[in-house]
């Protein structure tokens, strides 16, 4: 979810509403656009606003927020018209970019009233669009320039990494593109996007002055916009044409909201000769069916009422008939993919809290998962035997699972991107979690008897997910006289009450003392282990009292039991 920093003074100026730092009022208004104030810096008047909708990049600037809020706040309803003047710049796109970064969009915005605050806001928008909508500049990246320093036409082409040098933003000497990737912070951060190619993208003007090395960095000479800049050139490059055009629109509109006049650019693709005039601010016409709307909302709204609500939400209405509304979707509403997106906006404008909830009686029968009853019985029994139930994480690490348990490593489900070293894989047995638990409670009164009924995850090539989860049950007892007899007795009582005949078979297990450990057998199948924990394991966990434990595959036991009954 993007969080944007909004200068409240600027929002007030654009909206004509005064908040006077009333965050609750702001929060209430932001609910219309799924926004929430996360933080308000009263001194600087900056509100950090979280926009839940990741598909509404038009809301990621103060200009965009004001554009949409004005409808909901009753300041100005309907579609806000934006016009694009004639094309003033030609851009040619090299066909060799096709496999690198094929698309380009460009616009010139003249007579913009910029201030340091406005520029800060613009940079913030550019950053959010690059990061989120542009997927860390992979999909799209934006460049802003002082248009007065540029001599069109522009060429978007490729060059060898060492062929061109220019002064990148924030530097004082010129570097080659290869050097930029090595030395410039942005080159280091985003270099991987272009590094695999033999040639790199570059944008130059007709005097061969470099505008930028997309998606890495602008030129220090041309690519710096200040409060004195009047005419701004915006360019967006990227890998998905639609996203490039949308991004360009969002930036150009923010500048237009600052009093600028937008002029087009003509982008010519050398590969196929295709000419695209950018940006395109035209609305799209979507027919919204009245029945369809009411069927989703459970309301009985007339076409006229729906049209009114859509105007509140900032849409245009071209036509209203009994069955449908011709909706003009503004060019910046890139989230509208389906008529259902309009239906939600109708509901938001209507007010969720004005819709009466209804509990529909449906002939459904509730039930828990089939094994749930016996799982609960198992827990009851362990509680009755005096064991405290604990809950631990499924995520753990090989040291816990194997090393400290004196076991050989086996394959477990490891994650490729662990966040912390203690959580790198899913557990394949429960006992280590219980040992860890005991280890954290050495100062707590003994005897300590605990159990956990939890999932273990095992690799299983035959399954869709190449793994299977099973419900296992483990219990430990620890005190100065804890031993095999006590735990075997508990297990025996458990099985007797659970209605399962079991046998114990001699076995060896590296976590347990030889001669004090047994395999738990049910119907000739091994389903677990019971024994006295090996002192070396106690040492590894820094435990000073003996521990006796059992761990059983409850899932197998329950299946076995249910099979026998059926």
């Amino acid at each position, binding site marked *: 979810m993007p969080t944007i920093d909004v200068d409240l003074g600027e929002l007030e100026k654009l909206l004509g509403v005064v908040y006077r730092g009333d965050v609750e009022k702001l929060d209430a208004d932001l609910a219309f656009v799924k926004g929430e104030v996360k933080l308000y810096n009263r001194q600087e008047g900056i509100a950090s606003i979280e926009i839940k909708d990741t598909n509404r990049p038009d809301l990621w600037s103060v200009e965009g927020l004001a554009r949409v809020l004005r409808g909901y706040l009753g300041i100005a309803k309907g579609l806000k018209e934006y016009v694009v003047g004639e094309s003033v710049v030609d851009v040619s796109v090299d066909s060799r970019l096709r496999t690198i970064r094929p698309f380009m969009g460009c616009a010139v915005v003249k007579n913009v009233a910029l201030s340091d605050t406005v520029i800060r806001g613009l940079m913030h928008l550019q950053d959010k669009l690059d990061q989120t909508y542009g997927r860390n500049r992979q999909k799209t990246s934006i460049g802003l320039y002082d248009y007065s320093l540029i001599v069109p036409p522009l060429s978007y082409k490729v060059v060898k990494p060492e062929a061109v040098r220019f002064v990148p933003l924030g530097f004082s000497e010129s570097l080659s593109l290869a050097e930029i990737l090595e030395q410039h912070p942005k080159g280091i951060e985003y270099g991987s996007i272009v590094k695999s190619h033999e040639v790199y993208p570059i944008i130059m003007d007709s005097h061969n002055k470099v505008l930028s090395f997309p998606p890495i960095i602008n030129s220090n000479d041309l690519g710096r916009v200040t409060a004195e800049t009047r005419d701004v050139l915006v360019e967006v490059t990227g890998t998905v044409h639609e996203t490039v055009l949308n991004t360009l629109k969002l930036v150009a509109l923010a500048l237009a909201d600052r009093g600028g006049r937008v002029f087009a650019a003509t982008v010519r693709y050398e590969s196929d000769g295709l000419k695209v005039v950018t940006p395109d601010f035209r609305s799209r016409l979507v027919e919204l069916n009245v029945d369809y709307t009411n069927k989703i909302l459970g309301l009985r709204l007339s076409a006229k009422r729906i049209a009114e609500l859509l105007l509140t939400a900032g849409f245009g209405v071209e036509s209203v008939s009994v069955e449908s509304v011709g909706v003009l979707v503004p060019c910046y509403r890139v989230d509208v993919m389906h008529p259902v997106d309009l239906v939600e906006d109708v509901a938001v404008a209507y007010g969720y809290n004005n819709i009466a909830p209804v509990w529909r009686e449906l002939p459904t*029968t509730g039930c828990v998962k089939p094994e749930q009853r016996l799982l609960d019985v198992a827990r009851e029994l362990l509680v009755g035997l005096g064991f405290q139930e604990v809950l631990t994480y499924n995520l753990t690490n090989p040291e816990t699972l194997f090393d400290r348990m004196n076991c050989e490593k086996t394959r477990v489900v490891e994650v490729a991107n662990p966040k912390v070293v203690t959580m790198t894989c899913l557990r394949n047995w429960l006992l280590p979690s219980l040992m860890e638990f005991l280890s954290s409670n050495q100062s707590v009164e003994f005897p300590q008897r605990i159990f956990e009924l939890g999932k273990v995850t095992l690799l299983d090539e035959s399954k869709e997910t190449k793994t299977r989860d099973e419900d296992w049950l483990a219990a430990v007892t620890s005190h100065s006289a804890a031993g095999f007899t006590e735990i075997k007795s508990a297990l025996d009582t458990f099985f007797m009450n659970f209605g399962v005949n079991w046998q114990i078979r001699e076995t060896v297990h590296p976590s347990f003392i030889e001669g004090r450990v047994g395999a738990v057998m049910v119907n000739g199948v091994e389903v677990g282990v019971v024994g006295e924990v090996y002192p070396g394991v106690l040492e590894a966990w820094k435990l000073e009292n003996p521990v006796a434990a059992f761990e059983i595959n409850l899932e197998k036991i329950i299946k076995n039991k249910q099979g026998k009954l059926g």
Partner: protein
Amino acid sequence: MVELRAHEQKILSALEKFGGTATVEELIAECGFPDAAVMRAALTLKEKDLVKIYAEQQTQLRLTSEGEHHAKNGLPERRLIKAIAALGGAANLNQAAEKAGLEPQFKQIALGWAIRKKWAIYDSATNTVRIADPRLHQVVIPEENDEALLTFLSARQQTTLGDLTPELQSAVETLKKRKLLTVEPKTKRKLEITHAGLHAATRRATAAEITQLTPELIITGKWRNGKLQKYNIQAPVAKTWPGKKHPYLSFLEEVRMKLVQLGFKEMTGTNVETAFFNFDALYTPQDHPAREPSDIYYVKSPVYGDISKYKTAVEHVKETHENGWKTGSTGWHSTYSIREAERLILRGHGTCLSARTLLSKDLELPSRYFSIARVYRPEVIDKTHLSEFNQVEGIVVDEHLTLRDLLGVLEKFAREIAGADKVRFKPDYFPFTEPSVELSAYKEGYGWVEFGGSGIFRPEVTLPLGVQVPVIAWGLGVDRLFMMRAGIDDIRCIFSQDLDWLRRKQVA
């Protein structure tokens, strides 16, 4: 006539034997009762005016473990100086320390004190230590007060300041600063027998007192011959720790039962899931930020699962992502990779179970489903974040469902599960639902709490999975509800490793 219990009787006799007065320690040694038992008896005797108790404030000295060590081996500076003397009166510090057999942690201490006591002179340039008085390597440096005190203390169990000679007392501060001994105030109690006490002590007990009633006493009927001793029923007793269910799991059980009562059927799934069910089938584009390694755990090996069983659905989902397929949507206009859909992940939400249920041939109509699923996110664990937690989610499937029904489901949950007095709805966002609603519940004493998120599945979700009717999807913020009820503000408490907390946690 004054009645005496066995313990009291014994203490009076002991006092008599000691000549009328004795310290508590002496009585413990004589009677063989624990400290508390002697004190209990003494207090009762005092109430009966049989003894007097005098308290005297004393300062008790005790060696620390390091102090004990030095008492046994000699102070480190003494050991160092001896070694230097043996090496001819001057030596390299390291050599001297080695010769002295000094533990590494005491080397600098030894040097420091040897200099401070003016026993030695140190030249840092050459790392040489030399005995200060050139003759001294022949003469034995006399034992000083601190060393004498160490020896004195180590020879005795308990020592109070009063037991020391003025010379030894002067060394207490030094050793205390060196953390070789601890000084604790202690009250020393003395008992003195009164006349009445003397009288009672000499009187013969007429009948034996019975403390523990034994099977033997019952069977033989001997209990009739004795007197059953009265206990001090106010005396504190040891805690009994029972087995209990985990409070959070009990809470989930309660939620589970409520959902069943409301007609919901439980769904289950696995910790490891394919990206297809976790994301793609839920119309989350393949380049969505929620799929970044910073937001979802990927399985290292094997990397891919098997979704070949769902060939048709996968094709439809692919087309929907790319161009909207028959859903009436524009789609994401992005290229869709089936290989990417096969990626194995640790499920990031329980909604993947709903997607599986919708695709299942067993899907009933109408129906209500729920799941309680452990889910995983690559978060650093803190007060408000867990890397794995439980989600309670579900769906309602019926031909005639509307947004009003969705609000009705949420209101029902708020009242039945959270016990809320009022509810409030706000627009929300999920990639897979439209419209989407956030539920806030109000409960007296708790205020407004966000309690759930929900929506109607987008047609881009239901149609490719072969479902033609509206589906309400909902999720509940049960962790927050539990925390509120349990009065905890740290989410880590849910997976608490604190046995004491679990033992003391009230269940009612």
